[in-house]
């Protein structure tokens, strides 16, 4: 029984929502923007609920499926019921300044500590100078200075007085102290000295030598006395500073008594202030006359002194790295730019006198810090794109602690900060596509240990009546959330049909809700241009049309090449060994089909089908597989008991970009059969479908695009009614064709033929019966199969003839 074209209704199954009884989506109470993702949601719930190590979650699935949105919603719902985590502060490490100390505090206590310490610093900034400027301090300081000055003077005075009694002057020179004989107040001249009696000269020289020795002795004590004086002053400074500091710190310590780390830190602050703060508030350690000039030149005091004091006190500040005081529950952080610094924090630097300096106050938190005690959502592809980020994240998860370090830290021998690490307890949720997930699982052995939960979002949903109704509700939700016009029922139906089209299956709906939302927004825009209050079906249709229009420049060029005869495609008449195959091109997000002429030539050979594409490395492995299947089919079907003695060559004419896939294998077989039988094939029928060894035609992908591609060529030349496309019957359920094709089908001007096997197909293409084997084991006379078989027998005979000794091989 000849195969009949598909009825128009099958070409694009309509969506009918009349049973829902609504006019526009304004009447629908759509509350959900998700459908059919139960498995993924369960996985996410499971993953974020498991607190054990390694149970981080990888959310995989198609883009536009709302993965981020749904993950965020689920995680936020869970986090809201959890307690806000600790605050974290960094403080100066007084023992190892390059290793800032970290302190964990209950939520909100970090802010309190920071505020209290800031107040302490402010109080000390005014309190300590006041003490150093007090009369008491000055008096005690002067007493010390005076004591040592007198000790110093006394030592020299003894020498000076002794020198004076011997008429010797003690004079300060640029290099030290000199002893010279004098007469009265004047230094004696050389002439006067020479005029002295020799005995007197010798006495003077003896006195000079002795006084020099005593002077040396006196001066040798000076460094020790200076050291002693400095010690005494330091002791005094410590004493008065302690007086200023102890009470203040005591009060602060009492208010943070329950936090041992804070108390320890405050102890260190107290000790450090007592030890080091005094010099900041003294004009200069020497406080000598030169200090005035130095002050005038700006070397001490003034702004510089203030800055020095500011820097000195900065070491007592509290760097509140993580402040959770405003959190209502556990934190949920979505880091959109997961660089290493953005993940694990960084130490910022300040330029000072041409150098870049840093300290613990310049430590900044990363997303892991902020998500600690909660959840961190990252985009897997962005994470992998950032240098070192993936490795750093893994290292952090394995170590369960966050270390602030530069990406290249360790490669340069520069002194930098090594802050104490912070214990990490956060759930990491990566969102990525399937390919990324499978690549990581395959290539990174650590991946499965760290991301034990995969939440796989569905691509498609079944298009049953219940789902369709919920889908309509979902569209209503999208409309509400996007604040677009109410969507008319017909437009909703149209959107659902487009959803099926996006899924490439009349029995499925796409789960990429983002695509539906985009189409809705575009339709709403057009409704606005048309000054409509609602989104109509026409708006959706036009939005689809414009979307294609925006993307189909290359498709148009392709059609143009065929129309102008540059690419040879016949759409009427019949030819032996020539057939129109169909292929799909993907350009960005737009796919379209186009016909390709496939030709076959046969001659005597050793039973091989030569794939010319493969011979020149333009054919992929799947295509080659399809071609090899043809040899098997031909041998088994037509020459089961004799050698298959043909050499068939197959060519994708004017194809220069490579061919893969087996969707043209049935097409190629038809061409070979036509060539063997010497029966022409209708050029108005394009063919797609793969074939197995038994001659059964199997489903292929992109059926809609392929049909539309050939339709467009035919329409351009004028539809004759004899044109159409032959598709595997298994693909009928995938048909969601354009409206114009449905209309052409309804008008009998274009036909879609479903076929189950090669015999059905060859009959459509040649108009001749395929033929069955009769009782004699031969195909019926006049059938295609008989013609093929006869030709193969003839070729086998010819081969045998050539193979006989002395026949044909003789010179």
């Amino acid at each position, binding site marked *: 029984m000849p195969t009949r074209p598909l009825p128009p209704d099958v070409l694009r199954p309509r969506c009918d929502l009349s049973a829902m009884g609504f006019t526009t989506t304004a009447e629908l109470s759509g509350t959900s923007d998700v459908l059919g993702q139960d498995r993924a949601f369960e996985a996410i719930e499971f993953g974020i609920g498991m607190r054990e190590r390694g149970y981080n979650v990888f959310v995989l699935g198609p883009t536009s499926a709302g993965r981020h949105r749904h993950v965020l919603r689920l995680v936020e719902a869970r986090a809201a019921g959890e307690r806000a985590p600790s605050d974290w502060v960094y403080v100066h490490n007084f023992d190892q300044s390059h290793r800032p100390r970290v302190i964990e505090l209950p939520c909100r206590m970090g802010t309190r500590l920071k505020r209290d310490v800031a107040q302490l610093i402010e109080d000390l900034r005014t309190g300590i100078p006041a003490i150093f400027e007090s009369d008491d301090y000055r008096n005690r300081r002067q007493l010390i200075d005076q004591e040592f000055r007198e000790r110093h003077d006394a030592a*020299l005075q003894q020498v000076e007085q002794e020198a004076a009694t011997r008429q010797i002057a003690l004079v300060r020179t640029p*290099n030290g102290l000199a002893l010279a004989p004098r007469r009265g107040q004047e230094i004696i001249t050389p002439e006067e000295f020479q005029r002295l009696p020799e005995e007197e*000269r010798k006495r003077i020289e003896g006195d000079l030598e002795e006084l020099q020795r005593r002077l040396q002795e006196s001066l040798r004590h000076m460094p020790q006395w200076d050291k002693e004086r400095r010690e005494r002053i330091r002791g005094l400074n410590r004493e008065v500073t302690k007086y200023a500091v102890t009470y203040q710190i005591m009060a602060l310590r009492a208010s943070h008594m329950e936090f041992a780390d804070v108390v320890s830190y405050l102890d260190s602050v107290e000790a450090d202030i007592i030890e080091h703060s005094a010099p900041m508030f003294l004009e200069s350690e020497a406080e000598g006359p030169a200090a005035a000039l130095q002050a005038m030149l700006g070397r001490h005091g003034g702004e510089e002194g203030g800055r020095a004091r500011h820097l000195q006190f900065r070491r007592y500040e509290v760097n509140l790295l993580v402040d959770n005081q405003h959190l209502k529950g556990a934190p949920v952080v979505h880091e959109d730019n997961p660089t290493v610094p953005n993940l694990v924090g960084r130490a910022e630097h300040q330029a000072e006198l041409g150098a870049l300096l840093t300290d613990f106050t310049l430590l900044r938190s990363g997303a892991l810090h902020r998500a600690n005690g909660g959840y961190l959502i990252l985009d897997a592809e962005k994470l992998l794109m950032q240098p070192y980020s993936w490795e750093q994240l893994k290292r952090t998860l394995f170590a369960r602690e966050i270390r602030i370090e530069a990406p290249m830290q360790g490669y340069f021998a520069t002194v930098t900060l090594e802050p104490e690490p912070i214990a990490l307890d956060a759930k990491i949720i990566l969102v990525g596509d399937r390919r990324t997930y499978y690549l990581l699982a395959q290539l990174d052995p650590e991946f499965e240990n760290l991301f034990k939960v995969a939440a796989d979002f569905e691509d498609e949903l079944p298009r049953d009546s219940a789902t369709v109704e919920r889908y309509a509700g979902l569209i209503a939700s999208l409309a509400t959330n996007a604040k677009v016009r109410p969507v008319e029922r017909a437009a909703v139906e149209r959107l659902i049909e487009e959803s099926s089209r996006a899924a490439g299956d009349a029995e499925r709906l796409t789960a990429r809700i983002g695509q539906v939302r985009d189409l809705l927004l575009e339709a709403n825009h057009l409704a606005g241009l048309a000054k409509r209050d609602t989104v109509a079906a026409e708006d959706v249709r036009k939005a689809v049309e414009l979307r294609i229009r925006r993307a189909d420049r290359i498709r148009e060029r392709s059609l143009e090449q065929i129309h102008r005869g540059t690419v040879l495609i016949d759409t009427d008449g019949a030819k032996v060994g020539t057939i129109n195959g169909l292929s799909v091109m993907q350009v960005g997000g737009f796919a379209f089909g186009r016909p390709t002429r496939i030709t076959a030539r046969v001659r005597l050979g050793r039973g091989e089908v030569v794939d010319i594409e493969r011979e020149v490395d333009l054919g992929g492995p799947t295509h080659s597989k399809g071609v090899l299947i043809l040899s098997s089919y031909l041998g088994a079907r037509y020459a089961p008991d004799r050698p298959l003695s043909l050499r068939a060559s197959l060519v994708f004419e004017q194809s220069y970009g490579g061919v893969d896939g087996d969707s043209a294998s049935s097409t190629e077989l038809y061409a070979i059969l036509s060539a063997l039988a010497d029966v022409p094939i209708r050029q108005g029928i394009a063919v797609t479908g793969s074939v197995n060894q038994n001659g059964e035609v199997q489903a292929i992908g992109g059926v809609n695009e392929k049909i539309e591609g050939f339709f467009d060529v035919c329409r351009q030349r004028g539809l004759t009614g004899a044109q159409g496309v032959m598709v595997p019957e298994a693909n009928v359920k995938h048909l969601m064709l354009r409206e114009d094709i449905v209309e052409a089908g309804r008008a009998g001007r274009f036909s879609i033929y479903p076929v189950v096997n090669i015999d059905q197909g060859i009959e459509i293409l040649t108009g001749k019966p395929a033929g069955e084997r009769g009782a004699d084991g031969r195909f019926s006379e006049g059938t295609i199969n008989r013609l093929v078989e006869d030709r193969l027998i003839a070729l086998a005979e010819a081969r045998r003839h050539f193979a006989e000794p002395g026949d044909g091989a003789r010179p």
Partner: protein
Amino acid sequence: MTELGRTIERVLVALDASTESHAALAAAANLAARLHVQLVGLFIEDAKLFDIAQLSMVRQVSFTGEPSPAPDVESIERSLRAQAGVMRRTLETVAQSHHLSWSFQTARGRASAEILASASHSDLVILGKTTPSVTRRGSLGATARVVAERPRGAILFSDPRLQRVLGEGGAIVVVFDGSANAPRALALAADLAQAGSGELIILTPAKDEHDAQRLHDEAGASLSGRPLRVYHRICTGAGCTALVNATLSHQGNLLVIGAGSPVLGAESLADLLERLHSPVLVVDQA
């Protein structure tokens, strides 16, 4: 009437390599800036050092306590040139920071003689009051002592407090005793007060009420039109103690007095300088 800037057109500061010189330089620069006058640095190469360099038997000990070779003329000159260079650069820096006109001179001789010689053709000479001797740091220096014995012109015996006085303001106390130097002392004190806090305390050592009124009127006439807050105080008693007490009790930060003031009585100016721990400006009109 004396107008600001007319009594002083040039401030000369005596310098050597001591830290006290730095303080004097700072004070001099500050004063010159306030008065908008030229600043002159005079670096004095002490002749005594060259006397020592002539003697072969001289013994020297470095500041570290080690014996060092006796200085010769060449090494003394080299050292002094280096010190003068440092002081010159310091003066230049300070002057430029105050946008002052400035010059730098060197002179070799007895420090006191060079200062007195300069005082005769300078409006105001500043030298460190506590120019150091080998010992007795902080007490009156030998040079200051000699200069105080026969002052000439206007000589400000500076000490580190002067910088603070100029920086923070504070009253200037002037002794107006009716002597020959008193009017110029009053004019200079008024100039300095006008450049500073604007507060001037006039100490009048009067024998009786009539005398006090007379000095009061004279001083008032001299200061007529000046934007100053002037306070008249009677100085009871005489001698250094009376002056020191009066200065301190009126919170004076700088004392201005004429050379040979009868208020000093039998005591010398050096005694006053020794006992008053504040800068003192001595004016000798002759």
